[in-house]
């Protein structure tokens, strides 16, 4: 084996130009794989983040006729202990109402939150465009789209009419922007107390919202089942984002499959490239192999020469490819920027994925070297000696 390695090294060194070209070929394959992989993973993560990052991934609602949850403090405790991946739990009291401002009117969803808890999920406070969040009785926060549409100002009063015709005047203390126009137009956010008083719902709420940690986003459905078991309550329903976003999920899955397809085809072309170049090397070196065999080298040792060539080419190709891939990725995130300075394409650099890509390249190079290795072991020295 040692001799095989020594000869492989010398063969590669004796034709540096060719060796360099093969390594660059492998490196380009590896870098494309890393870049495409990081790009697709980045796109998926940013899509998931945008869609569900600032919203609950699991929602617990009531299936009773009045849709109300009463004993929620105990439920929150049970939820928090149901799974270690649960990070944020918040309550909401949602009720439909009618909003009037001057001569304008529209329907609105009044959402009562424990603002500080809900902020951990929705990130309201950071997404306030003007003013502050509701702290006192009859204060409300509206979306930036409503402000623009009706020309509202901070501290204006809006009239809220509930379905039971109760009229409450609320002071607008802030305008938020959740980046979704329908939410910006339709949600009026207030404190849990204001909403409970407004709609006369006393100590009840309509939903408990849960967010899991970033690594568990895609197992939200399993966590939902655990919560359901922990609560063991037939009057409630536990929903998760995966069940509610079938289309998004199939979109993500489609992306993953196309990413894997691209990577597989890149891999195939790399393997074919190495195999064909090494096959040519066997031809080029057939004279040397004939000489070595005449001197008594064993067939297995001759095979090692080409396996080591594959391994060496694969190793340097992978290392260079990782450098190219990372360079390309960083260049994209540094220089291809939106006007606000954020990258056009948010890449996700996953070191395990990069390491894996490198290993796959080395393994494929070794696999590609098998055919030439077998061919070389079958070479008969007399054919070389006789034909000079």
């Amino acid at each position, binding site marked *: 084996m*040692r*001799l095989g390695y*020594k*000869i492989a090294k*010398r*063969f590669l*060194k*004796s034709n540096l130009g060719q060796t360099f070209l093969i390594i660059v070929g492998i490196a380009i394959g590896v870098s494309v794989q890393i870049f495409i992989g990081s790009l697709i993973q980045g796109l998926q993560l940013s899509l998931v983040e945008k869609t569900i990052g600032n919203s609950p991934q699991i929602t617990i609602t009531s299936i009773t006729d009045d849709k109300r949850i009463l004993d929620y403090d105990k439920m929150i405790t049970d939820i928090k202990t149901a799974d270690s991946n649960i990070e944020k739990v918040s309550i909401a009291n949602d009720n439909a109402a009618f909003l009037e401002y001057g001569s304008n009117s529209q329907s609105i969803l009044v959402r009562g939150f424990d603002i500080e808890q809900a902020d951990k999920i929705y990130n309201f406070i950071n997404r306030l465009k003007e003013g502050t969040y509701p702290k006192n009785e009859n204060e409300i926060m509206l979306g930036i789209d409503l402000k623009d549409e009706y020309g509202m100002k901070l501290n204006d009063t809006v009239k809220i009419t509930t379905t039971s015709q109760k009229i409450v005047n609320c002071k607008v203390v802030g305008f938020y922007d959740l980046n979704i126009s329908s939410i910006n137009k339709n949600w009026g956010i207030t404190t849990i107390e204001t909403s409970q008083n407004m709609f006369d719902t006393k100590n009840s709420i309509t939903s408990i919202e849960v967010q899991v940690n970033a690594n568990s986003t895609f197992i939200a459905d399993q966590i939902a089942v655990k919560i359901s078991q922990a609560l063991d309550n037939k009057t409630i329903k536990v929903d998760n984002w995966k069940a509610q976003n079938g289309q998004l999920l199939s979109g993500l899955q489609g992306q993953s499959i196309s990413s894997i397809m691209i990577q597989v085809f890149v891999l195939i072309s790399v393997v074919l490239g190495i195999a064909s170049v090494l096959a040519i090397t066997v031809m080029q070196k057939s*004279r*040397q192999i*004939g*000489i*070595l*065999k*005449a*001197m*008594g*080298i*064993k*067939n297995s*040792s001759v095979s090692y020469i080409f396996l080591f060539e594959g391994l060496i080419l694969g190793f340097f190709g992978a290392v260079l490819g990782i450098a190219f891939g990372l360079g390309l990725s960083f260049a994209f995130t540094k220089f291809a920027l939106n006007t606000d300075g954020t990258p056009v394409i948010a890449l996700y650099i996953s070191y395990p994925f990069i390491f894996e890509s490198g290993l796959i390249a080395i393994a494929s190079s070794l696999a590609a070297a098998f055919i030439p290795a077998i061919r070389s072991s079958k070479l008969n*020295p*007399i054919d070389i*000696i*006789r034909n*000079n």
Partner: protein
Amino acid sequence: MNNMIELKGINKIYGEDIKTQVLYDINLSFEEGSFNSIIGQSGSGKSTILNIMGTLDKTTSGEIIIDGKNVKNMSNNQLAALRNSTIGFVFQFHYLLPEFTALENILMPYEIKHGKVTKEIVKKAEDYLKLVGLEDVKNNLVTKLSGGQQQRTAIARALINDPKLILADEPTGNLDSDSTETIYELLRNINKELGTTFVIITHDKRIAEKTDRIIEIKDGRINLDIIK
């Protein structure tokens, strides 16, 4: 004296559809420590005999006994090991590895046998380099050597594993007359000093006349066998 190599009833036929017989019932043996030459016109079958003796080519029928061992039923790996330790080859076109230096080429058969080189063997290789007059160019790639230097490197390589038998196929075939003389003297000295058996194919009558035994092959048969 024991026989170093013995050929019994060797026939060799090339081709599957169109058969060409190149050797007819060759019976031949060479004593240990002898210095022999095989002569004959091109196409007479002399190189085929040498390749068969070196286990590089297979016979159609007949038996070969090298150093007391019948090679008939040996596997490829056993033949490789036999070639590596018992036989040294010197070819007309030297067949050195162009990627390696003269010293590395000489050490190659030893490395094939033992997997690594020791200080002692490097010293021995350097002694052989001195013997063939190449100590100054030992670290040059063989492609940078002259034809005569390359052939002398090939001779040193053939000696490194202390083979009992050296088979040389026109070792001076593409050298000028001065180099031819030097190489011949070198082979003769090795034969005398180390007792190595030599079988040399040559078309050079003057060289053949200096050997102890001349065998002439004609149309695949032994035509003449002169022992001095």
